[in-house]
């Protein structure tokens, strides 16, 4: 798995394994070996103590939606670039899929697509769970579900 299979634009980071983890069904953050600070999105370097030693940790559990939107005027890439994708993307042409940010009990927050819930049913405070998905074209992303 290439990191780009998740990022869709950036080719490499020290955290390339993030995409492999997603493919294996795990959403991973990192924890600083020295001071214990936890990060999501994962970081290779700690901004609290400046250590560069990190451990991967799996993020599990439900969380509460802290915000959401649904974008009807998408960036070019998402409008025409995604030709063969099924939900959370539409097949022929992008149709808006809500996105949101889920705050976990440990304080970390995860962004994800919300393909399964109608926009009018979504509200701040909704309890959801973040799960990795492998799309039919083999790329990976994250969705937030009931």
């Amino acid at each position, binding site marked *: 798995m290439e990191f780009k299979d998740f*990022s*869709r634009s950036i080719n490499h980071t020290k955290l390339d394994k993030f995409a492999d983890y997603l493919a294996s069904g795990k959403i991973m953050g990192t924890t600083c070996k020295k001071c214990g600070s936890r990060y999501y999105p994962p970081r290779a370097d700690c901004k609290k103590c400046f250590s560069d030693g990190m451990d991967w940790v799996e993020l599990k559990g439900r969380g509460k939606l802290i915000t959401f939107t649904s*974008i*009807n*005027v998408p*960036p*070019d890439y998402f409008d025409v670039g995604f030709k063969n994708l099924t939900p959370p993307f539409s097949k022929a042409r992008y149709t808006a899929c809500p996105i949101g940010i889920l705050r976990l009990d440990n304080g970390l927050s995860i962004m994800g697509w919300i393909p399964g819930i109608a926009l009018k049913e979504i509200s701040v405070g909704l309890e959801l769970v973040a799960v990795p998905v492998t799309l039919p074209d083999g790329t990976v*992303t994250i969705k937030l579900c009931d």
Partner: protein
Amino acid sequence: MRRVAIVGIGNGKFGIRKDASLRELAFEPVKECLDDAGISLGDVDSMVTGIASDEFSLAFQPSAQIHDYLGFNPKPNFRVEGACASGSMAVRTGWLTVASGIADVVLVVAAEKMNEVNTGVATEILGRAGDSTWEYPFGTSFPGYYAMIASAHMDRHGTTEEQLAMVAVKNHHYGMMNPLAHIQKEVSLEMVLNSFVVAHPLKLYDCCLISDGAAAIILASEEKAKEISKKPVWITGLGCGTDTLGLNERRDLTTLEGTVFAANQAYKMAGVTPDDIDVACVHDCFTIGEICAYEDLGFCKKGEGGKMIEEKQTYLDGKIPVNVDGGLKSKGHPIGATGVSMSVEIVKQLREEAGKRQVKGAETGLSHNIAGSGQAVAVHIYQRD
């Protein structure tokens, strides 16, 4: 450090400028601000150029196009980039150049030609102002980031879609009085509420425009300012702040901490409080942005921004007139140019040259310019003699 004044202002027509290239757009306000100051380019020691994006410019060093076109070489010029706050960061850099004594007279010019690309591509370029590694994969757009701020604000503070729409109604109203504005059109509350949803809950009329345009000012040291200008406007306070790249790490999605930080610095430096501000240009890239600005700049308490617009406290005859030039919403938002255009408007107000939209007796003004969704913020305070 030396005192620094604005002694010349210029602002080109904002809009979809199919008639001009980037360098030609920049030429217009430069000519105007030199004429306004009554000096020639030969009197200018140094230049600073604000441009946000290479991708809009379709060039790697767009500032070179401008100094070359003006014939400024071999004197100093470089580009300052701060996304949508590039203009204000260029003003800040110009101010530092004069205050430090490196130069006595500085030209600050800022320009953007966004309509070289279509809306989809512009949305793509702007979307990457957020976290291009960790947010971009979720199809985030610029309106999308502010939409997420709006959803949180509505939940936390009870702000309504109607209150957001009221900001658009006000700014379109004042844009009607500004001949330089991109759109001159009154809009009603119903029109705003019924317009196309760009990113829920933000609609077409909640969004700023994709504009082309340029603005320029001349900055001078105290000694030079007194020589050149009868009505110098002094930049007496400058503040700059930052925030996390990704929205998910914000402590409070409804507060732009960079604004709070920058405003406190600027107020302290100028020795003023929010109550002393007579007129303000704030970053209304989206209507929710103006509401957050009221709160984060201290014009009202946190959570009361919606009420502030509902009570029309930011209209010309209200407590503190905000964006009476039409704002980014109606005047337009050629991203890099916006910050300098805000300085131009505040100078017009403090010189009492703003015509129909003049705030009577304005002595102290403020501009507030944001990069991205708060990642960098500049606040300047202006005072007249």
